[in-house]
């Protein structure tokens, strides 16, 4: 197998006496969709937060495409090619759809003062191109939404906000996409729609690798090839959904079966 997209070794995060993430080892290969599951408070989101530079790791290492990215700042993790969504949607609600998606496109846009203030013709070309790409991406998720690019995100229903959030993460063409509970706050029907979208987009972007945190077991069963199960910050099982669902430890910890 070639170099894994993501390799965690002994990844650990402590908050005072609480070990939120305990010696996690995990490997994700190119093009995989891996589920990260476990009961509330088992360290899933902490894992994402440490990985993306929001918190520092207390111990252990993270490699992305072979490169050590442990404790890089959030900006550098994004530049390296990892993009994420948040459990509680963190869109900029007063801003438009274009604004929110362009924020995710930040690394491909010119950020110099001189360029932005005085080279307006060049800015115009860059804007037009970036806008066309962003709209194309939104169209994959929902065609009508792509006609509403200049509306405030705060006026959109939850499912559209999730779509925009995923577009924001995808627009910079990351190699690794971290989805933190994309179904939160949505109905079953909406969740199914969103998963269709995610599978479709994955088919279009060659080599896109996804790690998804999810509570909806239906989602996990449908879209992941492999899952890692956490409990109290520790990995207790790993394998296909069927395998982990049959695991006694997982059932005790998570599925609540006697």
């Amino acid at each position, binding site marked *: 197998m070639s170099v894994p997209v993501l390799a965690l070794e002994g990844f650990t995060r402590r908050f005072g006496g609480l070990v939120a993430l305990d010696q996690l080892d995990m490997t994700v290969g190119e093009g995989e969709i891996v589920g990260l599951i476990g009961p509330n408070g088992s360290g899933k989101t902490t894992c994402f937060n440490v990985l993306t530079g929001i918190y520092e790791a207390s111990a252990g290492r993270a490699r992305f495409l072979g490169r050590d990215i442990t404790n890089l700042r959030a*900006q550098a993790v994004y530049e390296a090619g990892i993009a994420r969504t948040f459990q509680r949607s963190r869109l900029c609600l007063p801003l438009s759809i274009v604004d929110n998606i362009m924020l995710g496109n930040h690394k491909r846009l010119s950020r110099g*003062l001189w360029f932005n203030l005085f080279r307006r013709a060049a800015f115009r070309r860059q804007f037009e191109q970036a806008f066309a790409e962003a709209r194309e991406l939104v169209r994959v998720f929902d065609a009508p939404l792509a006609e509403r690019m200049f509306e405030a995100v705060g006026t959109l229903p939850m499912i559209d906000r999730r779509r925009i959030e995923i577009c924001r993460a995808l627009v910079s063409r990351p190699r690794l996409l971290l989805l933190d509970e994309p179904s939160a706050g949505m109905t079953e029907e909406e969740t199914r729609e969103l998963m269709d979208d995610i599978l479709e987009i994955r088919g279009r972007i060659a080599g896109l690798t996804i790690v998804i945190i999810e509570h909806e077991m239906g989602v996990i069963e449908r879209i992941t090839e492999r899952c890692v199960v956490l409990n109290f910050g520790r990995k207790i099982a790993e394998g296909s959904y069927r395998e982990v669902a049959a695991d006694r430890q997982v059932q005790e910890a998570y599925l609540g079966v006697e």
Partner: protein
Amino acid sequence: MSAPLWPGAIAAGLVTALGIAFMWAENEWEVVAVLVAAAVGAVVARRTGWLEPAARAFRERESAMNRLAILGLFVFVAFFHDDHFPLLMAGTVLIYFLVCLGLTIQFGYAGMVNFAAAAFLGVGCYTAAVLTAHTAIPHLLVLAIGGAVAALVGSILILPVLRTRGHYSAVVTIAFVLLFKTFLEVNDTLGGPQGLKLPSMQVLGWTFNENFSVAGVEVSFYMSYVLVALALVIAAFALTRRLERSWIGLSLDAVRLDETAAACFGVHIARWKIVAFTLGNFMAGVAGALYALMLGFIAPTNFTFGDSLIMVSIILLGGIGNPWGAALAAAIVVVLPEKLQLIQEYRFLLFAALVILVLLYRPGGLLPRQLRVYLPGWKPR
């Protein structure tokens, strides 16, 4: 199909007429009558929907409306060409507007509340006073140096400000504005509590503090200051607008709205806070240098916490992040207490009440900020 221009032109004309009538009114009853007429007119226009076509003209025929606004100001100053007081007011409003453009970048975009705007204005004032008294530096350059010194002094605050998130920069800047006034009062070199006097501004041999005549018509000397202030405001306005309509404006908004999400998408929080803070303080400093030259005399009492509050309340009243809102609110906040001596004593009370009312009933301000338009007039294909 772009919107017709005439509703916007009528609106601009009415606002100009209102400004002239307000300034023309002699006794307080007339002033109150003009105010009531303006308020009733605004409410009626809003209720009947007449405001919408005018707002569309402002949105879609932007450059034409900008020129009409400048024309309106020219009509105003031409009407009062030989009258010192209205021109002094126009100059003061423009200078406050300039400071508020800086605050718009700091507070409106980057979300850094700056309660030290009066202090940075003061830094510009004192820089101008010292430079004009002791050096022969050309006065236009003095304006720029005033801005640069204000930006430099502001950089002292950058480290503590960067350690704060969101609105907590207020605490740091409040401390600074209080220190600044005390510093001025005990500093004898800078005139202490008595302040400093400044000479007339001179540009290319033109002495500003003398009335002049154009085609036989006597013109107040304040006209020169108004024109310089207008030129500065136009430049700062264009800069502010371009900043907003760029990726930088987007980054600043992201910093204000959600630092964590912004960091996760590569936005360098500290860099943009420094840019916004420095740029805003520069504008305040330039405004200060011109203010000092126009007044000819400055003292520490001009640069108190109260003055900073007034500037922040201009932003709140006008609409956070909308430069046109700041223009309107600056005019209201500067001129109202001067015309209504009655309320001079209670102006802080009045503004506080006004700001609370606005925040309660119109949280976006009188002219709320619109969604970003990157390229005016551009439509997706």
